[in-house]
């Protein structure tokens, strides 16, 4: 199973810093993901510091498998004391989960999370751990087994208390209101991505606030167990032309999204699979050759120039454009598992010293893309040479 996680936040009205803090980290080798959402006391910079310290410290403690009770005490003792209230405090929800469905959650002070399977809300059992040094502070510890399609929704009290004291909802949205919203949304859109659902929750919470001005920081974090989205990139002709057909059919039979990078490669697939290639009326966008269209492929681009630019975008920032490299970058980011089929045949013309630009070696640029996708975007990447 793949864990799709995202958090969307909205600042309290007239504040310039988020008082809630979200942090997550994947550990691909252990097939593990840790995430912490913390809500700092008060709002603005003060809350931001408290929540940031809480979330990052807890993440490190959990990562090192330190007992949560001890970790939470250390965090609470470390936080700066508020000058107004003379206490140090921030709430948190910490999640430690694995690809096989094993998931443990520790909550202190945040609204109870919602576990949804389809549109049914499950009620997990929990144990309570009281704080040694602080009265009235206790943690709820959950241990669960998630199934494919399960969602876990965490939020700060900015969501459940949205609209409190004014507007239509006198008592605020509350957890029950959030559940109602989730049920309707998931019934209409059962495959919604975590980012979109988190964004929807935040929007809805903001809508019920008086004058749509949040009176507290609003954060929603969604964790969704789903099948990984697989995609295949076919780039470069195979070393032996006699294998063209075999590899073309591997491309054809792949289940998932498919991209082709390279003119000769596109011709090869078109010939072997009898698929027609067409193109629009633009030769180039942002000095890159435009995309082509081919039956059976979701994206067809030129080869090495586009791959080189795609690496630059992934490594730094993806601009707001519709050029081929931006489209290829988005193609990668919309996938969880990416398979590369890289042809080893060289085109001598690319290494002609009279060319005005240096053209990278395909194999090297694919390796660099794979590295950035794994390290920066936590994608699973597999490269096969042909």
């Amino acid at each position: 199973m793949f864990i799709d996680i995202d958090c969307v936040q909205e600042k309290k009205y007239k504040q310039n810093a988020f008082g809630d803090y979200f942090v997550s980290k994947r550990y691909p080798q252990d097939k593990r993901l840790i995430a912490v959402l913390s809500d700092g006391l008060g709002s603005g910079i003060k809350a931001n510091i408290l929540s940031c310290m809480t979330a990052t410290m807890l993440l490190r403690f959990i990562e090192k498998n330190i007992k949560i009770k001890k970790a939470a005490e250390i965090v609470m003792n470390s936080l700066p004391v508020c000058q107004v209230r003379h206490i140090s405090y921030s709430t948190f929800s910490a999640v430690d989960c694995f690809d096989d469905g094993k998931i443990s959650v520790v909550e202190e002070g945040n609204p109870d999370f919602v576990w949804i399977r389809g549109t049914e809300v499950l009620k997990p059992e929990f144990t309570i751990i009281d704080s040694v040094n602080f009265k009235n502070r206790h943690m709820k510890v959950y241990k669960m087994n998630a199934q494919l399609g399960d969602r876990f929704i965490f939020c700060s009290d900015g969501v459940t208390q949205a609209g409190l004291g004014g507007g239509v909802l006198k008592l605020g949205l509350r957890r029950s209101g959030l559940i109602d919203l989730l049920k309707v949304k998931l019934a209409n859109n059962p495959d919604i991505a975590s980012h979109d659902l988190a964004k929807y929750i935040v929007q809805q919470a903001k809508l019920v606030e008086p004058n749509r001005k949040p009176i507290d920081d609003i954060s929603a974090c969604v964790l969704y167990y789903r099948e990984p989205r697989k995609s295949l990139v076919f780039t470069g002709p195979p070393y032996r032309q006699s294998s063209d057909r075999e590899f073309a059919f591997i491309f054809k039979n792949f289940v998932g999204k498919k991209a082709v990078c390279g003119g000769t490669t596109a011709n090869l697939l078109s010939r072997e699979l009898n698929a027609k290639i067409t193109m629009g009326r633009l030769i180039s966008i942002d000095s890159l050759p435009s995309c082509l269209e081919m039956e059976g492929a979701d994206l067809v681009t030129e080869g090495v120039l586009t791959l080189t630019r795609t690496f630059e975008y992934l490594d730094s920032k993806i601009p707001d454009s519709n050029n081929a490299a931006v489209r290829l970058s988005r193609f990668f980011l919309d996938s969880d598992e990416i398979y590369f089929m890289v042809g080893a045949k060289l085109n001598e013309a690319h290494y002609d010293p009279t060319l005005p630009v240096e053209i990278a070696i395909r194999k090297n640029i694919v390796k660099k893309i794979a590295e950035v996708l794994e390290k920066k975007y936590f994608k699973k990447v597999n490269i096969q040479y042909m």
Partner: protein
Amino acid sequence: MEEKKIDVKVCLGTTCFVMGASNLQELIDSVPKRYGDKVEVTGVPCLGLCSIDWKFSKAPYVKVDDDVIKEATIDKVFAAIDKKLGNS
């Protein structure tokens, strides 16, 4: 009998693109204005010509029907189309 259209193919392979095919956008825009529907112009993935005579570096390539235009420019392509149409 319907007259057969002249088929112009602009190679958009990597070598042709960096050697100047990126400047042939005007061709796509101005051919319909100049010749109406007698000529059809399209971009194509790679004509594979650079790898045949790469040592001579004649990219960018454009094909007007079966005639290959080496080191193609807009003027050269227009001249080739005119010749086919018997305008010159």
